[in-house]
């Protein structure tokens, strides 16, 4: 029920496997908050009314004698402990330690920059080509991919267009060229800072395709987006990436297209 309320308030529909558990915890913690707040407020309003000066001219030196508040505090501690030990810590462990094996996942590098997301697919060989910041050219080679590296031959890169197959775990190695950005897809309940000098892996499993989501939300314009969550400069507010979740077949087709595009054009390294 709480989850329905939260969705009504604005919580976007969930679209990843672990996101369901995040929402359960979200609902749980908001229940705790609501109960506490309503309890406090009920008591508060009653007390303000009951013990106003005109009604109660003589204050009582002792005040409350019951131990009810202690029980409440203990209850709060227990609830917090449940949320912490039951949900939060195990969930984090799963996030950062239980990575799916690379062979069963879509593995991608994402390199953030002011103000774009560079997406890097390893191509059919599954190996990312060598990159070198010295080779970066924003028009032709924004990732600084070393074209002489055999592993780089079939690599596919693009800016801001992230395509992922549905129901298959995704591992993203996240880094940044310049300042700290933060990679977040609200519907996936995922967020991670992209920090220069570090490569942080995250993983999730998208469970709803873009098309399904369009039907579900009754909105043809529905669009998954990467939202930058960390102030990264004057263009921070529109550092959006576009995410398409699609069936494995559609994804493969798209990837082939992209690969073909990368192959046919630019026959001479000089012009790349």
């Amino acid at each position, binding site marked *: 029920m709480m989850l329905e309320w939260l969705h009504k308030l604005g919580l976007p529909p969930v679209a990843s496997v672990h996101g369901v558990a995040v929402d359960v915890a979200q609902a749980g913690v908001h229940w705790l908050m609501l109960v506490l707040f309503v309890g406090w407020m009920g008591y508060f309003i009653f007390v303000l009314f009951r013990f106003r000066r005109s009604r109660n001219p003589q204050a009582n030196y002792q005040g409350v004698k019951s131990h009810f508040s202690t029980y409440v505090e203990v209850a709060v501690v227990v609830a917090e402990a449940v949320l912490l030990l039951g949900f939060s810590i195990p969930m984090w462990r799963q996030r950062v330690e239980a990575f799916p094996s690379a062979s069963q996942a879509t593995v991608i590098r994402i390199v953030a*920059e*002011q*103000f*774009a997301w560079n997406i890097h697919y390893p191509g059919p060989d599954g190996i990312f080509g060598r990159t070198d910041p010295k080779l970066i050219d*924003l*028009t*032709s080679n*924004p990732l600084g991919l070393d074209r002489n590296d055999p592993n780089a031959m079939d690599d596919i890169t*693009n*800016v*801001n*267009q992230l395509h992922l197959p549905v129901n298959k775990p995704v591992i993203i190695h996240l880094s940044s060229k310049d300042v700290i950005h933060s990679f977040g897809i609200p519907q996936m309940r995922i967020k991670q800072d992209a920090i220069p000098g570090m490569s942080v892996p995250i993983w999730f499993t998208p469970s709803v395709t873009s098309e399904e989501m369009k039907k579900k939300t009754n909105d043809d314009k529905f669009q998954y987006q990467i939202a930058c969550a960390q102030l990264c*400069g*004057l*263009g921070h507010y*529109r550092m959006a990436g*576009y995410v398409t979740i699609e069936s494995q077949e559609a994804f493969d087709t798209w990837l082939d297209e992209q690969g073909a*595009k990368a192959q*046919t*054009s*630019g*026959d*001479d*390294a*000089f*012009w790349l």
Partner: protein
Amino acid sequence: MKKNVILLSLLGIIVIPGIALAASISGKVVFNGKVPGLKPLDMNADPMCAAHHKTPPMVEILVLGDGNSLANVFVSVASGLPQGKTYAAPKQAVTIDQNGCMYIPHVFGVMAGQPVVFKNSDGIMHNIHALPEKNRQFNAAMPGTLKETSKMFDKAESYFKIKCDVHPWMGAWARVMDHPYFQVTDKKGIFTIADLPAGTYEIEAWHEKLGVQKSKVTVGDKESKTLNFTFTAPSK
């Protein structure tokens, strides 16, 4: 001393158009060699940009006209101008438009102290990140609702890049001149440098990818000479 310079330059402004008339150098720049199959710009990164173009525009590192005439070559007088002479900057602004998520023109020259107006025809946010070395760098955002903004470069400076960080592919090349004898070739590859005093000049032609070529030419009073440049891609 300083006064003298100012006086002299004032004199120059008045005198040049009157007396030292109209020698001119013009010519054509062509590209020679195998024309590479260039990639179109991938503007999917910002759907609003992609929507501007029916077909994706080509990258601008090599813009050719009929007969492989080469556009976007910056042709200027490199040396030979009278020593110590200074040239006043025109009041009229150079205008750069941000249109279809591209800079128009792609290569431009401006005189030190001359205003540069950046227009935003796109109605989406761009930022103008100028990366000169001698002049002060600036990084100015232009939200969609801001239609134009005026900037100025104070010192003469060789070629530097101006780019948009919101749209990584967007780049323009600029050069700040201390004299008015320069032109950027159009798609026909044609340039004309007019109103030169008689003398021997070294003319420089620069292309962002193909480098610099220089050539000497002597013009007499009211004489017009032709000077052509041919750029070739380096062999592997």
